[in-house]
């Protein structure tokens, strides 16, 4: 009796293990499990039969049966895992994509390159405590010229060919009138930049009748020409890179004195000389100077108390240099193939 049972256990065990080894698909795993380990499975039936055994025989028979069940479960799960892996491998191979095909794009937008340059200039000057302000594009002759020390019939008007609307109203030729408007409204200290559109009667590959400037103004009690140099040098090095060198040359603007132009080492050639810098190694970036006492007096500041410096730079010029754009008109044609590049 006992031996017969043990033989039966061994037989079922061997049969089950053979069935496990013979499985070829994941679907068979469940079939085999049910056949041997399910509620009516052969091993399960044998386990149930244990109750019919005499008490002293049960432990040994139980032990054998449990061993058999464990062996079958192990074989099932090992073989099952093997089959699952194989099936997965097959699926993964089948799901292979041509990864070189183009992706499904979310459309990208972009800011205009001029906006990006202005953003960058603003970021740098805001970091140095400058507030960003605005002023009108349609200006009076008084603010655009006279208050900036450029009276009627002054030759300096030739520097800026002007679009007029009436005798007294024009399109501003520079962002400098914003200086006057800001100083009229505030008492020193003043530290502002004013980006915006300006207009001059001029059109060729380096001149646009509408272009952008960023004006800057700093007025306080102890401001020096040395501060002007330091501030603008810090700007240039952040804008064009830490290795940028700057050079200040005397110049003339009616509303600043002393006046200067700032050159930076050519960002194309680093100063060794190229077409962009006309082999000078330097390119002019901005005009600047100490605010003329007449301009300060005109807004009710006491030039003995308040000193300041102002500067102005052309956004197109800087943008064209940074991106090596050789024709200013590209900036206003807004060809999508151009805009996409920024």
């Amino acid at each position, binding site marked *: 009796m006992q031996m017969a049972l043990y033989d039966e256990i061994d037989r079922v065990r061997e049969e089950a293990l053979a069935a496990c080894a013979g499985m070829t698909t994941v679907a068979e795993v469940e079939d085999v499990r049910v056949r041997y380990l399910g509620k009516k499975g052969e091993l399960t039936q044998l386990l149930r039969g244990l109750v019919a055994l005499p008490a002293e025989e049960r432990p040994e028979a139980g032990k054998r049966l449990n061993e058999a069940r464990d062996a079958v479960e192990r074989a099932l799960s090992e073989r099952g895992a093997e089959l699952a892996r194989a099936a997965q491998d097959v699926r993964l191979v089948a799901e292979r994509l041509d990864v070189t095909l183009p992706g499904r794009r979310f459309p990208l937008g972009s800011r205009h390159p001029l906006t990006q340059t202005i953003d960058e200039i603003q970021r740098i000057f805001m970091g140095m405590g400058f507030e*960003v302000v*605005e002023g009108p594009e349609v200006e009076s002759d008084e603010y655009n010229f006279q208050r900036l020390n450029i009276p009627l019939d002054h030759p300096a008007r030739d520097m800026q060919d002007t679009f007029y609307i009436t005798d007294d109203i024009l399109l501003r030729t520079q962002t400098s009138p914003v200086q006057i408007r800001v100083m009229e409204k505030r008492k020193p200290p003043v530290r502002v930049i004013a980006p915006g559109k300006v207009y001059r009667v001029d059109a060729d590959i380096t001149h646009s009748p509408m272009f952008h400037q960023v004006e800057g103004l700093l007025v*306080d009690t102890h401001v020096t020409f040395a501060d002007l*140099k330091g501030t603008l040098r810090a700007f240039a090095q952040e804008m064009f890179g830490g290795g940028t060198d700057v050079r*200040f040359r005397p110049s003339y603007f009616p509303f600043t004195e002393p006046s200067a132009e700032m050159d930076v080492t050519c960002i194309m050639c680093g100063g060794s000389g190229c077409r962009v810098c006309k082999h000078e190694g330097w390119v002019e970036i901005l005009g600047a100077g100490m605010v003329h006492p007449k301009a300060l007096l005109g807004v009710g500041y006491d030039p003995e108390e308040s*000193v300041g410096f102002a500067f102005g730079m052309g956004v197109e010029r800087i943008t064209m240099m940074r991106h090596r754009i050789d024709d200013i008109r590209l900036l206003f*044609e807004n060809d999508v193939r151009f805009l996409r590049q920024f």
Partner: protein
Amino acid sequence: MRVSYRWLQDYVDVDIDAHELAKRLTAVGLTVEGVASIGEGLEGIRVGRIVESSPHPDAELRICRVDVGGSGIHTILSGATNVQTGDLVPVALPGTRLPGGHLVQVVDMKGIRSEGVMLSESEVGVGTDHTGIWILPREAGLGSDLADALGLRDQVIEIEAYNRADCLGMIGVAREVAALLGRSLQLPPTPLVESGERIEERIQVRIDDPGLCSRYTARRIQGVRVAPSVLWMQARLRAAGMRPINNLVDVTNFVMLEIGQPLHAFDANRLREGLIQVRLAGEGERIRTLDGEDRELRPDMLVIADAAGAVAIAGVMGGLETEVMDKTNDVLLESAAFRGASVRRTSRALGLRSEASMRFEKGVSSEGVAWASNRAASLMQQLAGGTVAPGMVDAYPAPSKPVVVHLRSGRVNRILGTQIKFEEMKAMLERLHFDVTPAGDVIQVAVPYFRQDVDSEIDLAEEIARMHGYDNIAATIPGGSPRGQKSERMRLQDRTKDLLVGCGLRECITYSFISPKSYDRLRLPPEDVRRRLIRLRNPLAEDLSVLRTTLVPGVLETLARNAHRQQDDAFLFELGAVYLPDELPLHRLPVEPLRCAIALMGSASGRNWHERRRDADFFDLKGVVEGLLEGLRLQGTFVAETQPFLHPGRAAAILVDGRRLGWLGELHPEVLSAYDLPRRVQVAELDMEAVLSATPGVTEYAAIGRHPAVVRDLALLSPKEWTGAEIAAVIQEVGGPVVRDTSLFDVYEGDRIPPDKRSLAYSITYQAEGRTLTDDEVGAVEGRIRTALQERMQISVRDK
């Protein structure tokens, strides 16, 4: 100003080369635009003399026998007719390469060998005259190198010194050079031998308005002989960019280039004697100017007049009738100081700009007038063989006094951020010919007459700064701790750009001035307020002549330009001002409200293999606008409302809290064709000022429901007249706060439902605060919604 390096040596000993000098000049504020070498490539061209000349037997040519000095006499043929035996001419013998690159060779011309060429001015590269052979002045040495003989080899430094009228003369530049090199300046002497009748016997001068002419002098030089100028004079003028004319005119130009004082020579015999008047032109007065034009003058133009009328437009151009001609032998030389603003107005009004008018505009000192007159008279006497009448007529009603400026060295250092000692400042100023007298704490500085640009302490600070060297001033960072910031309006612009860029749009920037025809293309009726346009007085072109009152034409032109270049897919926006006058013509500055235009053409993703190409439609644009509003935390509503340029059935107004922020829609087909646009275009414009005032500040966080939500679909069959907004509003109103979200996921019109109906399918999210909704509760709310839709709107629910 073209500064000849050779010429400069006449006044100051320059021992650095032209390029080094250029750097130094730039560093003191005479900005050098470039340095050019002239007279290069003339090697091998020599001075020859024509010793014999005869016609060619078989051709329209002359056979010249030309003596070229050392290498003997050569036969040279020429088609030119202006040469005679004895003339000196430039000759290039075979083997010489001309400035234009041509290699001279022996050529056979109808049976006679020509052993070289004789050259015109333009062939040598010194002038523009190519009509005949260049007849050289007598003193050119036979056989010598042409460039050497004529002093053609030189370097020209082009300088720009905008406010330095004195540097529009060689001597002014030389003064700067002397100051920066620490050298002395040598002024040329002006020896005069006066003889004959005193000038006052023949001529008186009267200045009507000393405000317009502070000084007028006249000298008379008699017995001159008009001829070409001597070589050095010609070389000087050419280096400075002027063309030699004759010895008299050349002297006036030479002295102008030398000292910056424009001069004019009248043919004294053709001037009615007696009184010369400096006066305003009479109403309708006319003058024929040197260029042969007959011009009508305006009563605000200053003229020089003799008894018979205007003989010159003061400071601008002389009259033809009293012009110096070949037979002129008696010259009246004018040297005067006219007011810059007046000369400027006149020359602009007449469209006549000259070297002279440009110098007057920038300022000519009345103190320099007499020296220039004497210098010119001296040169005329020397070079044209004249005798100078004793005396100078000198009308100088109010002689100018030297400007004296008070200078505080401490103040200068405070502005510059330097520690320059007083003695150093004094030395710098004295090198520049300022007269410095210490007087206690301040220093009195007398400004030399030629420095009309200096009249205040700050001007002297600039002189000191540039002499000290900008490079020698430190670079420091200003103190203080201000806040860098942007206004709310600017932050709104930034946010708007971020949102639209996030929607896949490209920012464009178009001109603020547009074509007035744009408004016809947009089909705007005459009374439309957007037709109230500010017009430029001097536009570049009619297409760029009015200030925009809407951004739409600019973006449409941009789309059209792209489409014309085969770029049919363009999603663009522009943020910029429009210009709205409150009255026309303009008396006050217009308002410049900020607008935002959005324009979509074609497909966002172009053609690709993932999906079918689909052109943007109204709802793509609406989606962008909705996204923008959501990003700005605004609750927008849209009501059907059209614009003349929009599709009447596909246009809406954008409202927030009942306020109109703008509009959107599909472009009208007629506008599409007016702009030659190949695809449907969706366009919107928002008034950013209204957006700004509607935009809330920092928003308050709304709790996210933690209890599970129930989502149920509701498929409706609605009469067509109900809008989606109306249906959604009823669902929300009846459902109350437990209806968290109503999203439309299907719309159908067609064969499967009655023609007056459309089917709308909503997915409704129910969620309560603080508890889980039961199915019964949701059912009850849905039931109320069904009933309300049925009873109020005759909308039935299509049950599955």
